[in-house]
């Protein structure tokens, strides 16, 4: 199978269309199992009572906010290095989903902070760096929107995304580097989890579900971007009518 074939938007469009239902189904299934484990199998926390169950949506959302940023920056770097149009499109397609998960991580964090610390928000290193991540995502989306020329917008936002990646390790290690109110990592690569196995399992299944969701929605947004850019003159030398015919063919006559 020639994978390079799919780096062209025309070939990627129908492939993405075929893959989306599978990732969407996987996302629904995994989130269903994750919620069942989180609410009906995982025991009550002996310190925090039932409020800790927010972890099953808070930690996966926070992880996704960081994963997606790194992934987005990787595509941005690839786009700059290879002058690859499709890579920039991936950067564009990932950003809104990353912003959404960052917002959810902050919101669910506030919902957890209030009963646990007695405050919705504190200017602690973990919370502040995650808030900066949200501003980075929003800045990236606005930067792109503010530049009319697609190729310039692609390169500018790729540089912006790459520079901003420095914040991800800061978020991740913030609970180690500074004294924060935020609790330390519940799960780490080097130590055994500080939680019951069923809790960890529920959290990991929810994370996988969020991953599948992110892939499905990013592929769907890629398809939007492909159609939108097909109208741009920078698409290539083909006549617009031909693009339209291709897009129509790709979308199965929708």
């Amino acid at each position: 199978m020639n994978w390079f074939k799919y780096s062209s938007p025309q070939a990627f469009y129908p492939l993405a269309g075929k893959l989306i239902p599978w990732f969407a189904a996987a996302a629904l299934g995994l989130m269903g199992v994750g919620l069942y484990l989180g609410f009906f199998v995982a025991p009550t926390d002996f310190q925090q009572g039932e409020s800790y169950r927010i972890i099953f949506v808070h930690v996966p959302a926070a992880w996704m906010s960081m994963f997606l940023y790194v992934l987005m920056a990787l595509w941005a770097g690839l786009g700059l290095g290879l002058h690859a149009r499709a890579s920039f499109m991936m950067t564009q397609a990932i950003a809104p989903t990353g912003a959404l998960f960052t917002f959810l991580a902050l919101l669910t964090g506030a919902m957890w902070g209030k009963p646990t610390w007695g405050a919705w928000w504190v200017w602690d290193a973990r919370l502040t760096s995650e808030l900066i991540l949200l501003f980075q995502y929003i800045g990236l989306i606005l930067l792109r929107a503010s530049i009319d020329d697609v190729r310039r917008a692609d390169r500018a936002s790729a540089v912006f995304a790459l520079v901003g990646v420095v914040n991800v390790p800061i978020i991740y290690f913030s609970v180690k580097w500074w004294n924060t109110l935020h609790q330390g990592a519940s799960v780490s690569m080097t130590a055994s989890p500080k939680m019951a196995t069923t809790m960890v399992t529920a959290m990991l299944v929810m994370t996988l579900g969020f991953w599948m969701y992110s892939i499905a929605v990013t592929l769907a947004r890629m398809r939007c971007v492909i159609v939108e850019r097909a109208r741009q003159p920078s698409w290539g030398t083909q006549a617009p009518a031909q693009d339209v015919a291709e897009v129509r063919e790709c979308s199965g006559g929708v």
Partner: protein
Amino acid sequence: MQWGSLTEFFAMGGYGLYVWTSFGATALCLVGEVLAVWRRHAAALAQTRAVASGGD
């Protein structure tokens, strides 16, 4: 399972407001994003079609 009744389940040991706001907001955001992308795709296709038929 630790829930004696449905009421107990919704009460979440007194943390119902926080727990259900978290999960509700997440569900709302994900569904909202899916709908937004769906509409964006439909709008993009419609506009492309309009440009093509308008002879632009």
